[in-house]
């Protein structure tokens, strides 16, 4: 018992410390590294909290995609790496009221945790009770795609929307760093097939154990990013046109199934008999389109065609 507590306490301290370092270290490079470390520690926390689905998503997105996106953005800032601010103490005092408010908020939040009422609604029991008619046997997947599938539908729209927003912001014309290092292509040759395999495994696993479309898509997207970093795929790089079609098709498939189920009496109302099959269909479609969507966050900005504000791919 005490070992468990010591483990958790140390994990908590490390998490807070890496978070603090992310904000406080003067160099942006180090800040991003500390953030990636933070993501790793957070994966451990989620595992400790018996939330392997979240741990998977955090591991795949945090370590793979977000970190790469952040480092890529730093590369675009071609200027000395240091933060401009040096008079930190002085700046802090100027912002004293805000800091005070934040401290008060922290104190109030921590105090409130000591006197929580007992939940009046027992939702885990409700989920367990209806799990049989949800079409899948893993409760998190049941919530994500059946009980609260509408949230997931909107969430897929948020991802597509973010991609639209990025296109609206405009893409840089230049290509970022080239690699002359032989290590990366070698690594990519062995890792990418494994990653694709892992993605399909996660997709398949989602129905009855932790995993599912999002985690699978994140791993696939990471594979695409690795291919891009390794420069193996220069002939393969999809045009913006195809990216848009695939990403849009995933959302349309989801909306289409949701709307078709209206005939049965409700939006996303899966008939218990076909629920498993329909959820698998949605998840498979989403895996591909979400993977392309996530990868596009990175790949679009490295495609060689493009100008700031209003670019068009050559295929149109």
């Amino acid at each position, binding site marked *: 018992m005490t070992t468990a507590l010591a483990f958790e306490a140390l994990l908590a301290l490390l*998490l*807070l410390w890496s*978070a603090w370092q992310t904000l406080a270290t003067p160099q942006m490079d180090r800040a991003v590294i500390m953030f990636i470390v933070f993501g790793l520690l957070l994966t451990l926390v989620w595992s*400790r909290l018996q939330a392997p689905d979240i741990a998977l998503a955090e591991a795949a997105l945090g370590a793979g995609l977000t970190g790469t996106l952040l480092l890529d953005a730093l590369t675009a800032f071609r200027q000395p790496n240091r933060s401009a601010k040096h008079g930190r103490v002085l700046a802090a005092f100027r912002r004293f009221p805000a800091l005070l408010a934040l401290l008060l908020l922290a104190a109030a*939040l921590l105090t409130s945790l000591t006197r929580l009422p007992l939940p009046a609604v027992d939702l885990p029991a409700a989920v367990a009770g209806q799990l049989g008619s949800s079409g899948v046997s893993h409760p998190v997947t049941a919530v994500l795609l059946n009980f609260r599938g509408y949230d997931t539908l909107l969430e897929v729209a948020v991802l597509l929307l973010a991609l639209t927003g990025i296109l609206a912001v405009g893409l840089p014309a230049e290509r970022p760093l080239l690699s002359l290092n032989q290590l990366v292509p070698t690594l990519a040759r062995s890792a990418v097939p494994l990653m694709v395999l892992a993605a399909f495994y996660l997709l398949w696993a989602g129905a009855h154990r932790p995993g599912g479309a999002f985690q699978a898509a994140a791993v696939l997207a990471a594979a695409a990013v690795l291919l891009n970093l390794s420069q193996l795929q220069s002939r393969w790089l999809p045009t913006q046109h195809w990216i848009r079609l695939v990403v849009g098709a995933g959302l349309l498939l989801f909306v289409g199934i949701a709307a078709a189920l209206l005939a049965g009496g409700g939006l996303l109302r899966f008939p218990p008999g076909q629920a498993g099959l329909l959820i698998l269909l949605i998840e498979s479609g989403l895996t591909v389109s979400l993977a392309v969507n996530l990868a596009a966050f990175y790949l679009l900005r490295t495609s060689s065609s493009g100008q700031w504000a209003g670019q068009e791919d050559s295929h149109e």
Partner: protein
Amino acid sequence: MSSGLLFAAVGCLLLVLGVGGVLLLDHLVRRILAFNLMGSGIFLVLVGLAQRSGRIDPVPQAMVLTGIVVSVAATALALALARRRYADSGSTTLQDKARREDRHD
């Protein structure tokens, strides 16, 4: 103290750290990092509180999965804006110009 409650408390601290970072720091990438810390803190509160009795609750876990995807989307858009801002003005912060814009109508 259950592990759920412990990590909920850690989540509260992360959240405050993150909000402070988004509001008070200058460098845009740093503020985006802070936003991510804030989000992670909230997710920990959500799952930690729900599981404070030690029982697994799939509903907040599914909500956090949704939340993570939403914050990845927001991060990607924010980074694109930060890069565009740098390309337009050579600045990695909002401060200098924005202050003036606020004053002048």
